[in-house]
């Protein structure tokens, strides 16, 4: 196996973290390129099944980034998102995946530097956890069995 490059998904709210990511780019701040952003109208749009399916499809880590608490454009979308993130973390812990592969962050559109920092934090966390057990299992299953003559 080569060097582990984690696949990390970021569900970003269009009102805050998506704009913050944009700002981080405009500010030429460095953050790991492994983070793939999915823009959502509000983190309240992210349901349990979206997070679980992303893990099924091979994500090593997922971050959900919504507005600061109290600042959601839809009032409670980010609070619902946090609750769902917590529920999925609990599920992951019970099915052999680490709950820490998932994290919720809150920031505002002006926090470009925070976005870059958050992305680096998540990258470091997933790097420490290693590849998702799903990816390891799939790779093991796909590996050809080599008969070694005695």
């Amino acid at each position, binding site marked *: 196996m080569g060097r582990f490059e984690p696949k990390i998904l970021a569900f970003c709210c269009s009102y805050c973290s998506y704009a913050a990511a944009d700002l981080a780019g405009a500010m030429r701040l460095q953050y790991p390129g492994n983070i793939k952003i999915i823009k959502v109208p509000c983190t309240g749009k992210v*349901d349990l099944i979206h997070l*679980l399916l992303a893990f099924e499809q091979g994500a090593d880590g997922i971050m959900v980034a919504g507005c600061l608490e109290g600042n959601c454009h839809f009032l409670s979308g980010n609070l619902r998102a946090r609750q769902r993130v917590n529920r999925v973390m609990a599920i992951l812990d019970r099915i052999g995946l680490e709950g820490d592969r998932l994290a919720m962050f809150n920031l505002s559109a002006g926090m470009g530097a925070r976005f870059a920092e958050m992305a680096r934090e998540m990258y470091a966390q997933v790097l420490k956890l290693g590849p998702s057990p799903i990816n390891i299992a799939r790779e093991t299953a796909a590996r050809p069995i080599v008969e070694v003559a005695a």
Partner: protein
Amino acid sequence: MIKAVPKPLEEIIDLVKDFHKVLIVGCDGCVTVCEAGGLKEVQVLGSSLRLYFTQAGQRMDIDETSLTRQCDQEYLDQLKDRIDHYEAVVSLACGCGVQYLAERYHDKIVYPGVDTCFMGVDLERGVYAERCQACGKCILANTGGICPIARCSKRMLNGPCGGSEKGKCEVNPEIDCGWQLIYDRLKILGQLDRFEQPVDPKDWATSRDGGPRKIVREDLRL
């Protein structure tokens, strides 16, 4: 409506672990409303099981569906062309739905995926409370619209008992005393005189004491 809670994942994993093709069937009725067994919960359970068995290196095909109701034959019939593909079925309907599914597909292994709790109401999202025990002869007209059978821990017909304290039940201080509620409501309605005559013993034959129950409505049958 009927209220249920999802069974712990570990319990469901243990039930299905010896199979390779499993169908999860939700119900769009009561269990969807209490977020225990609707299509969303079916998908979350399906995905969780796939993740579990994949990381454990075990082959497991899991399919998902949900029926309008599992307590009606005509909806259960919708599974007839596909149910043979599966070794076992996990039903997320209430206990009635699980049993009716098992009855309709007699040779199929059917497991319950939820714990069915009671008939109740939604106090708020995620908080449900019992209100009726289906005694078969409703006496709400005499009790201020508050059921002593479902809401008095001792199902007393002439309450309260001596354990009622400051409006709470002696069984658990979290529980309102049903008879205090009845008293307060009858007072508002100006019907406190109902307390002057003891209520006659109830005929429990219409409840579970008469054995499993069945309704036959000749006026509805063809």
